[in-house]
């Protein structure tokens, strides 16, 4: 990732003039927005097939296309989207589908806990609105950034989250529209496990994290037949506990 160089305005030769309107982006905010866009572009390109597969899945399911299209930006979590749609499509209730999505998204509590210090000195409105955009990608990118300026972080956060949200929604809609003409069996759906493998590798930074991933995958595979997506929850709990135990042992 590129190193941020904070830009500072030079006022030495500036004529006397009224203060600029408050809507003018400050150099700090502009730099934050640029950094957010720059970091998120490759990630966004990578999620395009994932979003299109989601759109094709929506089109092939019993979920109305409009509800599916609205789901992408409102839920703002691709894998939970898939999970909820698969439950509804299999005849599950709304409660079961919502619960399954929450099981998939329970990791966001951990992401929120890890990012809490970045939100602590922010305005109240941002502490309530900003967390809406917590996902794997925004968490991974922003936790790798050390810029402490709250205004910079707000601009970075909204630029990165906005870019991936807009592109993801647009590509999901394209998938819905192209669904009827996309031939089956071309393997586009393989981008989903492939992307999560790549994301998982970036999260495995030490042996306890590796133990957590191995235990999470193993227990989930053994518990796949549990109803209501509980296999994933079992894997998550087993994996996180194994990671914590491994850390204590090491």
């Amino acid at each position, binding site marked *: 990732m590129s190193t941020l160089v904070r830009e500072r305005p030079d006022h030495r030769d500036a004529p006397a003039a009224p203060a600029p309107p408050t809507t003018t982006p400050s150099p700090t905010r502009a730099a934050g927005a640029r950094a957010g866009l720059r970091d998120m572009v490759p990630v966004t390109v990578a999620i395009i097939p994932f979003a299109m597969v989601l759109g094709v899945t929506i089109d092939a399911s019993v979920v109305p296309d409009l509800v599916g299209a609205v789901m992408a930006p409102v839920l703002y979590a691709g894998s939970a989207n898939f999970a909820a749609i698969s439950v509804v499509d299999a005849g599950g209730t709304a409660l079961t589908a*919502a619960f399954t999505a929450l099981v998939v998204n329970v990791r966001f509590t951990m992401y929120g806990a890890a990012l809490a210090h970045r939100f602590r000195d922010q305005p109240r409105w941002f502490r309530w609105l900003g967390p809406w955009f917590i996902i794997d990608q925004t968490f991974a990118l922003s936790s790798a950034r050390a810029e402490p300026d709250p205004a910079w972080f707000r601009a970075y956060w909204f630029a990165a989250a906005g870019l991936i949200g807009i592109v993801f929604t647009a590509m999901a809609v394209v998938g819905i529209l192209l669904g009827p003409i996309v031939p089956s069996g071309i393997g586009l759906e393989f981008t*989903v496990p*492939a*992307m999560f493998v790549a994301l998982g590798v970036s999260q495995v930074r030490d042996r306890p994290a*590796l133990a957590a991933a191995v235990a999470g995958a193993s227990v989930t595979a053994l518990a796949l037949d549990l109803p209501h997506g509980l296999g*994933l929850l079992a894997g998550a709990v087993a994996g996180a506990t194994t990671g914590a135990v491994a850390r204590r042992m090491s």
Partner: protein
Amino acid sequence: MTATFALIGAAAGSYVLRIAFVTLIDVERLPDAVREALRYVGPAVTAAIVVTSLAHGEGRAGLHLSAAQVTGLLAAAVTAWRTGSLLWALGAAMGSFTLVGLLL
């Protein structure tokens, strides 16, 4: 209507999960054991999602990996590890998945 209610419930619940330790609860108040376990939810859940996405909602019966899938997943892991690039990893995964699928 099932899908609409599922969307509303999932979105509202996910928002509560997201703000839980940012706005509602001071993360310092959690027991140490829970905070330690929270550190590893990310890799644990991500690995679990790989498994469920390969099974396509068909339970353990749906978890049969082809040679092309295994090659693709290995290519994704190795490329992500060596380059740190999600884009390269996805390209390597899809390229090897397609190639092995055509050859076998």
